[in-house]
């Protein structure tokens, strides 16, 4: 769907439109890892052997263990392969938001979310083209609502394949 069309659609429907959730959906793999040498490496090895490319990642740690979050091309395939290797993994919906790589654009995005009372559960950035654009991965509780608000504010949301084609 083209951005222009969408915009019109949103204006026409006064924000209450029922677009299919998932049109803008991207996926992140969340992996349970113990905080020990070699644990992260085990994951990158499995993915690397299957030519799966990690586009971005973040680690949330709680002492002895943590959750490794990765954005990868073909998340479903990666999910299956990790499962086969008896890795504790889950696939989660996230919003991948494209912003300009310049000062003030991250502030702008966060401002839109906070004024609409959307709380971020987690958030991390991937710089995809130096000086041009960046992708911010956000995890929110109010997923569909956040999606609608961002679209209404002309923020571009990427799906899985779009993240990798940038």
């Amino acid at each position, binding site marked *: 769907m083209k951005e222009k069309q969408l915009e019109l659609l949103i204006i026409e429907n006064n924000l209450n439109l029922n677009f299919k959730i998932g049109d803008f959906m991207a996926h992140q793999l969340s992996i349970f890892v113990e905080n020990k040498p070699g644990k992260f490496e085990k994951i990158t090895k499995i993915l690397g052997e299957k030519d799966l490319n990690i586009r971005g990642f973040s680690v949330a740690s709680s002492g002895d263990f943590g959750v490794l979050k990765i954005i990868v091309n073909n998340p479903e395939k990666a999910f299956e392969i990790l499962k086969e290797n008896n890795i*504790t993994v889950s696939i989660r919906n996230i919003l991948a938001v494209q912003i300009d790589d310049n000062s003030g654009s991250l502030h702008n995005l966060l401002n839109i979310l906070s004024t609409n009372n959307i709380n971020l559960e987690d958030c991390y950035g991937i710089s995809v083209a130096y000086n041009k654009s960046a992708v911010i991965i956000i995890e929110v509780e109010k997923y569909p609502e956040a999606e609608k608000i961002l679209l209404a504010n002309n923020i571009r949301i990427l799906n899985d394949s779009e993240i990798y084609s940038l």
Partner: protein
Amino acid sequence: MYWEESIETIKRDDLDKYQIKMLNILINQAKNSTFYKKRLFNYEKINSFSDFQKIPFTTKQDLRDGFPYDFLTIDIKDVVRLHSSSGTTGNPTVIFHTKNDLDEWSNLIARCMYMAGVRKEDIFQNIMSYGLFTGGIGFHYGAEKLGAMTIPIGPGNSKRQIWFMEKFKTTVVHILPSYALRLYTHLQEEGIDPKKDLSLKIAFVGAEPHTEETRRKIEELYGIKVYNSYGLSEMNGPGVAFECEYQNGMHLWEDNYYAEIINPETGEVLPDGEEGELVLTTLKRTAMPIIRYRTRDLTRIILGKCSCGRTHRKIDRIKGRSDDMLIINGVNIFPMQIEQILMKAKELGANYIIEVQKENFMDKLYIKVEINNQFFNGTLEELERLQKHIIEELKNEIGVNPIVKLVESGSLPQNEGKAVRVIDHRK
């Protein structure tokens, strides 16, 4: 419904009389052994159980000290088999059997299996170790006596286990509870749903302590009935006590064993219903009778009649072996109490390890438990909540503050035999 109706539903009075008669025969027979000749020279005829309860206990140490033949009552030419403990610490405990002793034992196991619903038509896959260990061979002969086709496969090699289950449509298994849980992950890996793709109906679990929660977990995963059994090699092995279809306590076969519950500290015999150490006497074994044997297993007699109609009293699930008890900063803890909490949380896997060590003169209790892959939602918050919850539950149950470490699925060592769950670094 019954394998031997007249024996299984015998009137209590008749059973009591029968036991007194058998105890007298036993005492006379036992006097033929070096050990009991000395021990029993004061005891002639007994007329009541209180007479019998004056005889001193026999302990594991007595059996070790009497190695190899001090408990044997007959000529070696009439012995057809021995079973033995591993004897890693000191002399092994060796038990001898005549042909008739083995027949009695096999019949007892057939009775147990029949009670749980096994019939001639069933296919029985025996996933227990064969050899000196009594669990494998005991069930093997019991199943054959009952008439079920028996696959003597033994433990391990999960691929082959599954292959046999599929090809021969196995309906009954005898398996270590820890292996049943592990085998399930292999089934998952091979894309086999035991509920749909296999013909299993019944599993007998035993040989290692486990909780009610573990049993229910196995039942749920496989969609089968799991029966708890109790036995110990000194009392032949499996078949001492067994669950009926009501699964609330194990009928102890009182035509074969005389059971008492005692206070382990004082040796005083406790009334039915009170928890204590189980003390057993063989009533039918000729080659090697054992009188008032301290099993070190803690349980109680369950009061009341069983709906199945059997009159043999029931014992509760073994709470723990008095040897298994851990003392942590002065608090007594049984590993089973910990397992019970861990098995209740579906977010946790079945594999865990308890470690105790001294740090700054204080005992520290570490519990490592694997995460269940299927219930991971991908957030750190959920994991932290789970960890907190488990610590809280454990603290309430055992009164000690444990350190709980969540570990990756499959990362804890797996044993082919009995699972090693407790490592005490203080020893």
